[in-house]
């Protein structure tokens, strides 16, 4: 317990670092991964804007990034990180590779959510002469809302744990603290404290996500 109390300043700093990393990568996931998912859906076979080439290129890129072991992705993105942030250490720098990983991750989930929207509803909208933009906003995104929220929740929880690996690039954070003290220094108490913190964070995100998704679900 004394150990944990003496570590308090470090733990607080780590919490801040984790929050920075998760916020930035999730923002990137929503801003870029969302549209990516919509495009993946629209350009797929027999869909509103079928485009084999575009769909293939996007699928290929998504699969490429998603098949990287995360630690290798972190290291291979060092040049990009330096270009964007001017440094390779700290939570902001680690957020670059986290974002690159989060965009296709969330993009895939968005694509899957949209696929679950019943065809009938979309056909009905098309027959009323609605344009694509209207269909995306008023039909697809509205119908898929609960599933999109669940997808976002999964993404946030995954990236809380991904951010632990970002310690490898000096990103810091709670998970990194657990690795540095638990794995490298054999200080189980600090490790347990970090894991409890992460657990609380994950529980919070998951329960907010679940309740929001079920409130948005019109079937309840």
């Amino acid at each position, binding site marked *: 317990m004394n150990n944990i109390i003496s570590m308090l300043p470090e733990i607080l700093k780590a919490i*801040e670092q984790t929050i*920075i990393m998760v*916020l*930035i990568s999730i*923002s*990137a996931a929503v*801003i*870029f991964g969302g549209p990516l998912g919509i495009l993946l859906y629209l350009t797929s076979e027999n869909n509103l804007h079928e485009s084999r080439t575009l769909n293939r290129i996007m699928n290929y890129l998504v699969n490429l990034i998603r098949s990287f072991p995360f*630690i290798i992705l972190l*290291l291979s993105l*060092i040049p*990009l990180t*330096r*270009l*964007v*942030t*001017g*440094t*390779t*250490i*700290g939570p*902001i*720098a680690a*957020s*670059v590779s986290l*974002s690159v990983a989060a965009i296709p991750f969330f993009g895939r989930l968005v694509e899957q959510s949209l696929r679950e929207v019943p065809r009938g509803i979309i056909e009905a909208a098309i027959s009323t002469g609605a344009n694509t933009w209207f269909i995306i906003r008023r039909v697809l995104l509205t119908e898929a809302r609960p599933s999109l929220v669940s997808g976002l929740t999964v993404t946030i929880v995954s990236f809380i744990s991904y951010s632990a690996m970002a*310690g*490898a*690039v*000096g990103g810091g954070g709670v998970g*990194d603290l657990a*690795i*540095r*003290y638990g*794995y*490298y*220094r*054999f200080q189980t108490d600090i490790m347990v404290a970090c894991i409890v913190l992460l657990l609380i964070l994950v529980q919070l995100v998951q329960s907010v996500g679940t309740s929001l998704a079920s409130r948005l679900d019109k079937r309840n």
Partner: protein
Amino acid sequence: MNSFNFCKKVSVVVLALALTLSVTACGKTNQNSEKKNIKVGFLAGPYSDQFKRAVQPILEKKGYKVEIVEFSNAVQPNSSLTDGSIDANVFQHIGYLKGINEKDKSDIVELIKVPTAPLGIYSNKFKKLSELKEGAQVSLSSDASNLARSLVLLQQAGLIKIKPDIDPLKATEKDITENPKKIKIVPLDAPQLPRSLADVDYSIITGNHVIAAGMKLSDSLLLEDPPAIYQIILAVRGADKDKPFAKDLAEAYKSKEFRTFVENDEKAKGFSKPDYWK
């Protein structure tokens, strides 16, 4: 960090990602000669802990603001030093550094050697190296330079022979020419080695991980006497070699205070002394 500043940072990064413009969110370290803020990089473990407890206070007395940056892989401390994210590091021996300088065309130089925790052979199952049975499992570090170093130690112990013309920093299991006891080499991530003692017959562990695991260097069945190439160094960018901050860093490590600390600290027992303390 106040919330406004934080929001600014977040939006800056998101924008930068969108436009892939190079934005300097966190300014690079200023390169003036009156440098008073220094960042020193380590791998998590005893070198970092010793610095925090005994070297950092000396520097702070001289008016420096010191930040410790800990990494959990051995690639980053050098690349971060090269790009100016940190100003010095203490984690590697000169052989490893030479390899990096060649590979990355970087210019990182040694200032001084620091007290080093030697590599040793440990066992939970046997009291002596001579009890080693045929087909024994021996775990060792999977990273290139420590793997080679471990093989050299096995050769010193007379258990294997490696190619005579091989670079002692690049030898791998494939360079073993004689293995009469048919030892099975098990390469593992270094922090895993102390934990592997329950499963293997012997383990060759670098001193920093021995100490981190709460074991003693004196438990070793065989310790290497680290030759100069395996002693841990304090390293800086070539351009900073003669800067006041580099001199002060080296002086803090050489100081009587730090020496007294190393000689009396329970966790520093068995560290090899650098030449300037002999």
